[in-house]
């Protein structure tokens, strides 16, 4: 069972929902632009990370070799780790759809969304592709009016293509 938070519904809150949709759109744009600074602005100061523990996709989201998965890590550092692990890719596209949001309190929310992400190395019209599909499960907090990611979880349910070929070379 995932470590999902206790959910308390506190009204529809259309403005907050739209702000969270915007944050998810900005997240996808930042990752695909390989813009670690833009991605860092969407992270809480500290974040928990629950990435796929096994399989080739785990390497793309490895925050730090010593991260134990239990203690929070520096959010902006994690954002830059994501873009660093994808720096060698010629094109990525993260298509996020079907967001579902429940509010846990005035400044907290839990969001799930579908993800379809394709990663290319080399010529994206002829190159090697690796694609994954799955779900984000995000704990969000509102800080100074902005919704940010406090717990980042990714569940990958399928993958397709040549994963090893698109893995980042060692730094």
């Amino acid at each position, binding site marked *: 069972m995932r470590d999902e938070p206790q959910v308390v519904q506190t009204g529809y809150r259309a403005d907050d929902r*739209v*702000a969270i*949709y*915007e944050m998810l759109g900005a997240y996808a744009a930042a990752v695909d632009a390989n813009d670690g600074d833009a991605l860092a*602005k969407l992270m809480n100061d500290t974040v928990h990370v629950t990435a796929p523990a096994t399989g080739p996709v785990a390497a793309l989201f490895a925050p730090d070799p010593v991260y134990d998965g239990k203690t929070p890590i520096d959010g902006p550092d994690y954002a830059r780790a994501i873009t660093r692990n994808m720096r060698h890719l010629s094109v990525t*596209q993260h298509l996020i759809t079907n967001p579902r949001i429940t509010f846990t309190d005035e400044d907290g929310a839990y969001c799930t969304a579908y993800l379809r992400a*394709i990663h290319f190395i080399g010529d*994206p*019209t002829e190159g090697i592709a690796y694609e994954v599909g799955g779900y984000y499960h995000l704990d969000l907090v509102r800080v100074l009016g*902005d919704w940010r990611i406090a717990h980042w979880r990714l569940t990958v349910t399928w993958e397709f293509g040549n994963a090893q070929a698109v893995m980042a070379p060692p730094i």
Partner: protein
Amino acid sequence: MTAVNLRTEDRLRISQMLTDYATALDGGDATGLALVLAARLRKLGTASGSMAKAFARDPAYGGQTEIAGLDFASSLARNSRAMRVSHHQVGLASIGFSGEAAARCHVGIRAVLQGSDSDSWLEVGGHYDHDLVKESEYWRIAFWRLDLRWERPLLGR
């Protein structure tokens, strides 16, 4: 980072407009497309691979020009009707407002295409990056930008 300028109703209307665009495009519906385009608009389509060649052949997509909205809608619809399959999936939009009646939106797009005279399927991906204007309560595309960044054949069908 400053708080997002919400303008909830405008954002919902823009998201709906993007969905309407994709639906009209896939349906080859020129009337529906014309509803989401400004009376005159600029357009800029860029791509790589086989889609770049297709853009070069078809001025409806490629290059930067100014065009009447009705003419552009007709071209898009005609091209779509020539396909056996046209299926466009749009992601969540990132929207920035630059005035009461002006905005820019960035949204990912993936499309599955099959030509009417071909058994081959192609999937393409990239993003739209449109300038929008608000006319009455309707948001319309004033500068249509499409950047297709990847493509791949779909096998095993």
